[in-house]
């Protein structure tokens, strides 16, 4: 209730101020204050007054004796931004403003790594964006060195460095030639954040199948299906077998299991059987008993 009253009062004081704020001669304010650090404000004159400090998400109210220095403890102001100061006395009102800037060095970062899953062998396919923050989650606007590192079970470690601009740094990395999970780490000073990038096989490169009799039916089976880098396509990938015989057709969508797709189809002498996955068409077999 008290803080709400203080906030309302602060708003009224601000509303009564002239649009352009200037540091008055009787109120000595710091030009900038580092977020979370101690600071003081010196006033002049005699008597009692009330000092208001209003900024982004924070408002302070202090009863002061004019002519003395008012001290503020570490942590009293922790949100970066422009703060307006008003000293309301019995006879006059003085006002001014100062900036609270992010504390240095950066101690936290937000790391956006995209995509979390991509095909192998993509040039600059991975992007990383880092936002650096101080202890109080203020965006640190002063340039800071960010190092990015992508390492995994396969491929060489990739390292990049970038300077933050207005609190943001970014980079791009290549995906490895071999599938697997990679650690994508962004580091600023002692602060680090890790994301996992899953590198998965690309499109199938070659698709071959064979057929053999299986009782009354025909067992068709692919060779292990791999992409152009030799990575086995993951289980569950759909392979379509199509058999055409005298104007009729039989199809079956089969998921890869342990790297191969297999199924049974009608055994018609003279039938043609083809295989495909995605947009890749494999070999064709003509079945003759």
């Amino acid at each position, binding site marked *: 209730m008290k803080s709400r009253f203080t906030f309302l009062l602060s708003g009224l004081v601000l509303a009564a101020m002239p649009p352009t704020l200037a540091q008055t001669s009787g109120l000595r304010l710091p030009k900038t204050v580092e977020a979370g650090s101690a600071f003081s404000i010196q006033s002049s004159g005699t008597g009692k007054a009330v000092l208001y400090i209003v900024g982004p998400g924070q408002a302070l109210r202090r009863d002061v004796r004019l002519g003395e220095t008012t001290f503020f403890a570490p942590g009293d102001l922790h949100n970066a931004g422009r703060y307006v100061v008003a000293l309301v006395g019995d006879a006059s009102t003085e006002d001014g403003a100062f900036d609270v800037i992010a504390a240095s060095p950066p101690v936290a970062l*937000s*790391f*956006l*790594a*995209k*995509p*979390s*899953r991509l095909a192998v062998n993509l040039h600059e396919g991975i992007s990383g964006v880092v*936002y650096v923050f101080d202890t109080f989650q203020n965006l640190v606007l002063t340039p800071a060195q960010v190092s990015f590192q992508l390492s995994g079970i396969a491929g060489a470690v990739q390292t990049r460095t970038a300077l933050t601009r207005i609190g943001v740094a970014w980079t791009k990395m290549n995906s490895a030639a071999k599938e697997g999970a990679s650690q994508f780490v962004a580091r600023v000073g002692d602060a680090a*954040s890790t*994301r*996992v990038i899953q590198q*998965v*096989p690309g*499109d*199938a490169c070659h698709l071959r199948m064979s057929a053999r009799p299986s009782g009354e039916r025909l067992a068709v089976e692919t060779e292990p299906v791999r992409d152009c880098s030799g990575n086995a*396509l*993951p*289980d*569950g*990938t*759909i*392979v379509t077998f*199509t058999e055409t015989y005298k*104007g*009729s*057709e*039989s*199809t*079956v*969508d*089969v*998921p890869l*299991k342990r790297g191969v797709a297999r*199924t*049974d*189809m*009608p055994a018609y002498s003279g039938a043609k059987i083809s295989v495909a*996955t*995605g*947009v890749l068409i494999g070999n064709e077999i003509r079945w003759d008993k």
Partner: protein
Amino acid sequence: MNNGRLLAIVIAAATVALIVVGTVWPVPSAKAMAGSGASLLRSSSSPQAAVENLAAEIGRQAWGNAYSSLANKSEFTEIEFVRDLTGSYPSLRTYATLDSFDLRPLHASADEAQIQLKLRWSTVVGAFLDTRELRVVRTGDRWGVVWPIVKEPRVPPQVIPVTYLRWDVIYRGAEDDWGSQDVEAPHVRIVDMHPVDRGGGVVIMGELLNEDVVPAFVTVKATLLAKNGSALSTEDSFDKISHILLPKQVTPFLIAFHDVALSEVDSVHMEPSSTLIAASADPVIEIEDQRLSPAPKATLNGKLVNQSGQAVSVAHVLGTFYDKNGQLIWVADQYVDRALLPQTPVAFAMSVPADIAVKVSSERAITTTYSSGRFQ
């Protein structure tokens, strides 16, 4: 004033007359749908009356009455009769209600008649037609229907091991930090798309590929744009698509705009969307003996064979039709009303417009299945 009064009297008289006619001579299918009792049924003194009575009892789901009216009830039990109509396993038939029925006499003699009965069942995914050729025989002064029982095969109790993949997903939580990754949506791509003028409207057909390594729930939305860039209309593919796409799987899609002419359209904005979902690679459905029967009543016929161990409650078949240049020219679909039991073929027949059928050079069919509360 007099004219108005006269008109009111005429309308009132006509209303009373229609109520009397509808009560005394009700339409058989309406009578069945109204759930009226047996007292409203006609005596089975003619072949048509016997079939109408039977259809009405089926519509009221009065299985006991329907069964007892049959002339060949010694050949099967009432349970088998009910299973023939509603399915032995949960399927579209199980939850269907009879919407209407039609009779067509085919042949008649003094003691025997042949009548075609078309039962139109309504379901949540649309209506399906069950056509039966009925033999009706005379017994004394009454006629009875010889029901052509279709006994659904039963699968003997057994254990069928299935080892296909299943994908489960853990999504980003509400408490995760800003910047934390969520699971990446699957990458899908439209590999073919054609807008065509059809029936005074616009139809957009195409094919969508899941080029990722994870399953996707997909939809396709299209917006027709005029020459000035304004949107004429927006529609999505609704159920003319297989919404669940496993890795590297391709689905056709069809989006219909009934109120826009193709001449008004300058460009089309396509929006495929995908969401990562939990899914299973099981069951695997083989589509056997697909064959396009020619116009005028062109249909794509085939048989679905469930190669897995799980009974499939509802199967949705989508057909993609290509011309001799390999260009997509039509997409059709059909829901199968009977459950797919392991290794048990179930026939399907989907209609193809006659003008399209004559251009078809090849076709491809895929299925989406629904089993006991989960897709695929």
